[in-house]
């Protein structure tokens, strides 16, 4: 631990020295009587001050949580020598909230303060005492956190010295957004050959009726449509659409984050991406991710629970990273964007590079659905005539951009705050049906 003397030592010793000198010079024993206690206290403090023997461990009760959950950080303290006063300060990362009550039922009153927020308490430890402080933190925002950034400060009996120590045994915690229940998803224009839940446009074994055709050798008798056979006078069989899986790539525009009282566009995008990933993976589709921003992250499409956790882990590391570098989709590995994949883009359509990347995807013939997470409500009401005019111009500009995407074959739907993701997806699906991009 790092030892520091307090300012009190210098003040006491200086005043004592002055008083003694004055007493000696003026021949006044009263000044010696005034100086003596100060000097004696410093001598006693120096004589009794010993470096505290203190062990501390930080542990978090879990590694994964959902937004709204409460996690417990346990700080275990063990003192080899008596510690008169030990200040414990836990840094609470932004996105998490400190407790409102007392930890471990003790009389310690914790508190979270401003930025950076902290939880702090002061305790006394006897020699050989072990104490565990349980600190409950609420997860307010998704993200990848490091918990356990703890500062310790010990004081001696006379408060002449402090010993400080920083514990950097960080414990990881990933907070996932609560997935929304989605009953209908954007259906892909093309499917893979593997079995899934999407009705493929091709003909084959399946449930959905597609067409009738004449019986051919090799057809199964159960495929024969007896009513049509009776009407036509020849054997007719039902053709069906097979249920197939698809590749879905979630395209997350993280160049800019527009924040407002109603939340941020990135928070909404990440929440929607997590919900979509969980829903598509439940349908046995393969889901990939391209987080396109200052940090470009990608995951090749994969299926199953492992892919979901991998994708969520990657999503949690999404952040806005300021960069002026121009990013294009040519930087992505080819297998990240399979040819027949349905790309669902979640973007506020604010950054030029993100907008251009979507045009690039359309030019390459990808099946693209764009959810435009509207930043208009987050920017607040524009003040004055010119502010209102600027806001209207911006809205017009955004509408023009959406029309340009639609002309190139993408389904683009604006997602205002008032709408649920499910409503937006239904609107995207309707838009795709009108454009002939999705099976009717």
């Amino acid at each position: 631990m790092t030892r520091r003397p307090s300012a009190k030592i210098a003040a006491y010793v200086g005043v004592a020295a002055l008083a003694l000198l004055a007493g000696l010079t003026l021949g006044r024993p009263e000044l010696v009587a005034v100086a003596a206690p100060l000097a004696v206290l410093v001598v006693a403090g120096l004589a009794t001050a010993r470096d505290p023997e203190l062990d501390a461990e930080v542990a978090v009760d879990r590694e994964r949580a959902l937004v709204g959950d409460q996690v417990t950080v346990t700080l275990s303290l063990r003192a080899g020598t008596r510690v008169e006063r030990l200040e414990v300060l836990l840094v609470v990362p932004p996105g998490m909230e400190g407790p409102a009550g007392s930890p471990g039922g003790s009389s310690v009153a914790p508190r979270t303060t401003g930025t950076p927020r902290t939880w702090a308490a002061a305790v006394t430890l006897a020699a050989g005492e072990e104490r565990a402080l349980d600190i409950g933190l609420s997860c307010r925002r998704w993200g990848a956190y490091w918990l356990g950034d703890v500062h310790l400060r010990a004081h001696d009996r006379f408060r002449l010295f402090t010993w400080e120590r920083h514990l950097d045994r960080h414990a990881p915690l990933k907070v996932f957004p609560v997935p929304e229940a989605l009953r209908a998803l954007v259906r892909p224009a093309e499917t893979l050959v593997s079995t899934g839940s999407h009705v493929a446009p091709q003909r084959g074994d399946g449930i959905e009726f597609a067409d009738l055709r004449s019986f051919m050798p090799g057809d199964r008798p159960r495929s024969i449509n007896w009513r049509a056979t009776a009407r036509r006078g020849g054997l007719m069989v039902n053709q069906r659409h097979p249920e197939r899986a698809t590749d879905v790539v979630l395209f997350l525009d993280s160049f800019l984050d527009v924040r407002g009282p109603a939340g941020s566009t990135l928070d909404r995008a990440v929440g929607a991406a997590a919900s979509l990933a969980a829903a598509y993976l439940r349908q046995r589709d393969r889901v990939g991710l391209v987080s396109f921003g200052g940090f470009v992250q990608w995951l090749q499409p994969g299926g199953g629970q492992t892919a979901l956790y991998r994708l969520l882990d990657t999503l949690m590391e999404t952040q806005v990273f300021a960069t002026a570098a121009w990013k294009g989709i040519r930087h992505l590995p080819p297998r990240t964007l399979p040819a027949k994949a349905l790309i669902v883009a979640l973007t506020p359509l604010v950054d030029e590079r993100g907008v251009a990347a979507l045009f690039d995807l359309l030019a390459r013939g990808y099946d693209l659905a764009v959810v435009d997470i509207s930043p208009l409500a987050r920017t607040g009401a524009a003040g004055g005539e010119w502010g209102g005019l600027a806001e209207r111009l911006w809205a017009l500009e955004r509408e023009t951009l959406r029309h340009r995407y639609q002309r190139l074959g993408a389904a683009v739907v604006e997602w205002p705050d008032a709408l649920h993701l499910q409503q937006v997806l239904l609107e995207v699906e309707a838009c795709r049906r009108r454009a002939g991009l999705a099976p009717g």
Partner: protein
Amino acid sequence: MPAPRRARTRLTCGLAATAVAAVLALAPLAEVTGTLREALAWVAGLAMVLAAAAALRLGSLLGPALVVLLAEYTVVLVGRGDRIDAAAPLFGAGLLLYAELASWAREARPGVSDERPVLVTRAIVVAASALAALGLGVLVLLAATLPAGGGLARLAIGVVATTLTLVLVVVVARPMSTRAPRG
């Protein structure tokens, strides 16, 4: 409620320290009259302002506040003539009590709340320090009034004590911070 207790400790200690400093600053004024009293009133005012600031806001002013209080008391002592001030141990104990309360007020940071045993132990240490200071002051004054040894012996003791204190100053002035080894 935890939050009020945290603010209460800080405020109580700060106000108590200020009150003690006010007594220390105003009490010596009763001993003097005339122009000296008027001049010392200004010094007392300055001492109270510094003491209050040190206790409530700026901990770095603790040293100057103590020095001004001591200076005022010294001037009053000089004005008394040869008579020994029997209240000197009280002044010494008060000075220590003020300094301890002021540093306690600064120690009670807004973001940190102390559990009850910490507060109780601290209160006991402060009270015991003040009482010990009172006893020590009385002992020093008694020793000063002893006839044995005469003035030369007392002078020698004073020189030794002052020298030891100056040695202590040198010891304290040396860097006392230690840094934890890396790794």
